[in-house]
């Protein structure tokens, strides 16, 4: 699958493993849209993200990758202000995101669209009403204009003909596309995708990836994809972060990450079972549990 539009590549990005200190953040000197600055987050004793710093450039597609449970989705929650960092801060165009300031948070959220992993469509509404929902809540547009916008958004995801169906009448992949149409209904400046490729068939996957890239380029939005689908992410992303055990272990352009010799990066990209990231959850030895030598 090829890209449908030229990608906006940064000329001054350079890749460096995060633990190499000074070069931890990409040197993005222009138009930083979102900045996560030394953020630490956890529940009680359990640390989920530890002193992570990420930068997202306006108009770029950035992938955040890592194995399940590494803290990727938590990062989206932190950006959305659903949870508050224990340390550090997150800024959107220089303005800090403060979950305690409800008014400012809601004003900020109006500039953000989020695609949830399973769509999170309102099951009592039709697909049309789902996409129309944010427009009806946040604008005073006449119904005829809302109709035109909704039909356009549904057309963009290939589901104009399904406008009158209920979410229970469509497949999971279609639900995700409708959710994407709803996400972009208000033309957000930042679009966050939580596992947009999980569970999609190859055709839907290719279409979804293409759509994310095209939408980003057409609207000039900043896109943030949380996924563990290496191939699709690398295909459409300008930049990528690799998170492991709550830390940013590497970041760079897809080409730079593919060329990396860092063991954690290599293990993740090649999907190897053996490496610095353990597949098995910590447990007593097999000898103890099974009563036989491991």
């Amino acid at each position, binding site marked *: 699958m090829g890209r449908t539009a030229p990608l906006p590549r940064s000329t001054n990005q350079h890749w460096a493993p995060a633990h190499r200190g000074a070069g931890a953040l990409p040197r993005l000197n222009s138009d930083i849209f979102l900045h996560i600055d030394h953020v630490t987050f956890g529940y009680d004793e359990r640390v989920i993200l530890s002193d992570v710093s990420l930068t997202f450039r306006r108009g770029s597609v950035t992938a955040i990758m890592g194995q399940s449970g590494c803290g990727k989705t938590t990062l989206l929650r932190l950006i*959305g202000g659903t949870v508050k960092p224990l340390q550090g801060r997150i800024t959107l165009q220089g303005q800090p995101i403060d979950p305690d300031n409800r008014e400012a948070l809601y004003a900020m959220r*109006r500039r953000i669209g989020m695609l949830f992993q399973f769509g*999170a469509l309102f099951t009592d509404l039709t697909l049309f009403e789902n996409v129309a929902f944010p427009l009806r809540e*946040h604008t005073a547009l006449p119904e005829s204009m809302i109709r035109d916008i909704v039909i356009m958004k549904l057309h963009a995801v290939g589901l104009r003909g399904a406008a009158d169906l209920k979410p229970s009448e469509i497949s999971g992949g279609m639900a995700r596309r409708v959710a994407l149409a709803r996400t972009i209904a208000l033309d957000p400046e930042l679009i966050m995708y939580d596992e947009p490729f999980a569970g999609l068939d190859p055709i839907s996957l290719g279409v979804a990836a293409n759509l994310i890239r095209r939408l980003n380029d057409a609207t000039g939005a900043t896109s943030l994809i949380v996924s563990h689908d290496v191939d699709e992410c690398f295909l459409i992303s300008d930049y990528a972060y690799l998170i492991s055990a709550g830390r940013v272990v590497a970041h760079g352009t897809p080409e730079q990450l593919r060329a990396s010799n860092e063991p954690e990066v290599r293990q993740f990209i090649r999907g190897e079972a053996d490496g610095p990231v353990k597949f098995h959850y910590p447990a007593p030895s097999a000898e103890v549990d099974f009563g036989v030598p491991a």
Partner: protein
Amino acid sequence: MKLLDVPQRLGEITLGIMRALGHNAAFFTELVKNVPAAVRRFFLVTAQIHAIGNYSLVIIVASGMAVGFVLGLQGYYTLSRYGAAESLGLLVALSLVRELGPVVTALLYAGRAGTSLTAEIGLMKAGEQLAAMEMMAIDPKQRVLAPRFVGGIIAMPLLAAMFSAVGIFGGYIVGVVLIGIDAGQFWSQMQNGVDVFDDVGNGIVKSLVFGVACTFVALYQGYEAQATPEGVAQATTRTVVISSLAILMLDFVLTALMFSSL
């Protein structure tokens, strides 16, 4: 358990109860704060009155009729021993509008509409619909919970009125049509003995209070449910148990207050 652990355990339990009460109070306050916004968009409230009230009508009417039948039979049996069978209309009406109408309606409401509300909100939470709304900068308490809260409060007295009306009709069928009490006596005794403010008014007050309690419990349990199938199932069960106990306790308190004001 050691002896010294007892005060510590008691302290933990007390703190737990206080924390839960505080959480409930904060949630209730937020819900009430969002009521004006829900009233301003009254089409959301009418949709809920339809969902909560209209769909509960069958069980309310059927139960009201059955209770009316039983009241007619039991009332006639008791009153006829004292030669006061003509007062059956009064007995049936007073029993229904003062007590049985509001209480039984509220218990049925908790089982029919309360569980439905809890399951709906709980599943919305499990399906990340509430989180999606939050991320769209739409407050789910204002958009989803408050209209249901107002709808429930409005629907409850209407359902109780329907229950009492159908119950009185049931008493009429048993007393007048089947047993043969004079219809004029049945209705005139009722007309003379039932006071609009002291009896019907008190019944409406009870219904409103039960409406607030039951709908609040159902919404709170749904909103705070764990986002898993077991979590929603447990929340639904808690809705019925807590609502039923709350109705019975509130009924005693309200009845005592209403008696003391007579």
